[in-house]
């Protein structure tokens, strides 16, 4: 609304504005700008050779979005999370450096020459594979989302938290994962007639352990070796992790090193005392692997301030553990009317789907919402519906519609309606 705001990028956010201001400050402080009219100024970077090529790239010094790190409790700081900066990223792939993290006892520094995958238990023969062995198998590459089961739990709290989309929904990322279909390896070991479950175990200090039904394990599950084209990073399970598309992130066991095949689940701590969904009647759902249909508007979103009236692009992400995204509707009036958004990267099975729709803001109060429908016909529920069955202590698998209120000053806030 003021003259200086004309420099703002169209997808205005506070972070982007700060970057621009900093760029200007650096130029002046360096004293390189010629004392001519601004329009005729030749930028510094156009007047001499830039830096040389390098072995390993870095992003621009003007790009500063970061994960938001939350340490575990005082007794276990490495048992924490970090949240992906959803508001400043775009498209549907998360850069590996910004992929969310959840570790139960820190990130192990694994020497791949000393690491292997062993499949044992109810199999015809126990087999062991080195990392190089697995790289020699027929690999598959697919774009999939990964979402922590506890993502968005802040919106299950009684009062709406005035936080960003990163802080509320940032335990969500999307990547192209490349790996060996697990069924190849299970078949090589040879399942015997008792085999009903696999129990995957990580080599980290927590020995993270999750059980999966054998049918699910033989479906789309892979032993992932690469993420977005590069070898897995330590925080994502280097040198190998299980990847279970569409399921809660916790079952995609990182630093995978053993798989036991057996007749029953292990009923490990992470699938009994944690990652179970307590209902209001006191019973709890267990082995509720699939993440439900969900979407969130990433811009405009919480903690942003709209700096001008006019056209904005409302943009966000949609995903479902039950298949692909068939459609996303957006409302600017708190759900009284809905308009179909444009889907990009459409049709990706269990992948993040970017949606966009233009919106004219005229300085009035508004409530922006998105509602996704997946290929199985599931429709994202309201907050009220999503919470209806669950206990106050059951904060996993929450997928209610997000409401962002925009006030006449342009301030965007998380609200419940």
């Amino acid at each position, binding site marked *: 609304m003021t003259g200086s705001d004309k420099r703002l990028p169209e997808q205005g956010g506070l972070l982007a504005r700060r970057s621009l201001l900093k760029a200007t400050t650096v130029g002046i402080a360096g004293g390189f700008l010629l004392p001519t009219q601004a329009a005729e100024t030749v930028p510094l970077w156009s007047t001499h050779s830039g830096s040389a090529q390098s072995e390993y790239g870095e992003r621009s010094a003007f790009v500063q979005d970061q994960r938001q790190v939350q340490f575990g409790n005082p007794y276990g700081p490495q048992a924490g999370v970090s949240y992906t900066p959803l508001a400043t990223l775009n498209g549907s792939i998360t850069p590996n450096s910004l992929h969310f993290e959840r570790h139960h*006892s820190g990130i192990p520094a694994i020497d791949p020459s000393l690491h292997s995958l062993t499949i044992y238990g109810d199999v015809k023969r126990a087999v062991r594979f080195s990392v190089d062995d697995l790289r020699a198998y*027929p690999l598959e590459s697919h774009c999939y989302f990964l979402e922590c089961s506890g993502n968005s739990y802040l919106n299950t709290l009684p009062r709406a938290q005035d936080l960003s989309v990163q802080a509320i929904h940032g335990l969500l990322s999307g990547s192209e994962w490349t790996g060996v279909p697990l069924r190849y390896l299970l078949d090589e070991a040879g399942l015997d007639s008792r085999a009903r479950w696999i129990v995957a*175990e990580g080599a980290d200090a927590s*020995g993270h352990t999750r059980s999966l039904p054998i049918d699910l394990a033989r479906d789309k599950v892979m032993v992932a070796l690469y993420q977005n084209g590069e070898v897995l990073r330590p925080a994502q399970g280097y040198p190998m992790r299980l990847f279970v598309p569409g399921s809660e992130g916790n079952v995609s066991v990182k630093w995978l090193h053993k798989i*036991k095949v057996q007749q029953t689940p292990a009923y490990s701590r992470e699938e*009994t005392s944690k990652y179970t969904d307590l209902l209001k009647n006191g*019973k709890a759902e267990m082995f509720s692997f699939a993440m439900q249909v969900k979407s969130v508007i990433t811009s405009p979103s919480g903690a942003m301030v709209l700096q001008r009236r006019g056209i904005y692009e409302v943009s966000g992400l949609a995903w479902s553990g039950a298949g692909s995204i068939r459609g996303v509707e957006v409302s600017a009036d708190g759900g009284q009317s809905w308009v179909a958004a444009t889907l990009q990267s459409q049709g990706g099975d269990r992948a993040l789907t970017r949606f966009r729709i233009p919106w004219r803001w005229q300085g009035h109060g508004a409530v922006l919402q998105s509602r996704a429908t997946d290929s199985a016909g599931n429709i994202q529920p309201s907050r009220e519906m999503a919470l209806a069955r669950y206990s*106050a202590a059951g904060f996993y698998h929450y997928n209610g519609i997000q409401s962002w209120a925009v006030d006449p000053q342009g301030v965007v806030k998380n609200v419940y309606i």
Partner: protein
Amino acid sequence: MFISSSLRWLIGPHNLAVTAAAVLVLLASPAALTQQHSTLAEAAQLGHHLQPRLGRTVDNVADSIVSPDGSALPEGSGTAAIGEGVYRARCSACHGPVGAQKGNSLVGGIGSLATGKPFKSIGSYWPYATTLFDYIARAMPYGQEKSLTANEVYALTAYLLHLNGIVGAQQVVDKDRLPVISMPNRDGFIELHR
């Protein structure tokens, strides 16, 4: 590294067809090339039938998964009376003197699950006692994981069950007795498997 993997793939004992194709390439006659192409096309259609099968057979894998049937439970035993000392030395710094440290509590809440203030603890929520042994042995104490002996883990398991009113102070817990201990919330779960 890549070359050695490729060679192993070519000479693996389970890939006679692929090995034959490789030999034909080496001969490099036009007829051989035709056959090579058809073999690749066939491979593309067959998909997973053409895997290198590099898994090495291993005997005596250390079983590290303790399930409710007691599989993988080691020899050894312990009681809550012994476990109390181990707990004070190895666990109380984080979990408090009697397992009730706020935010890290291991006790209480029995009967609370269907109320407006449910509290999940070992006693109120965990369906199987074997899970205690499995988790303590693999993941505790935080920062010194896998440093406890089997006897210490049995004793700690007994002590935590005792703090929750599930076993007596002198009750011996071992590989035969642990799987038959009945947990209060054993029937509290609905398995979805999806």
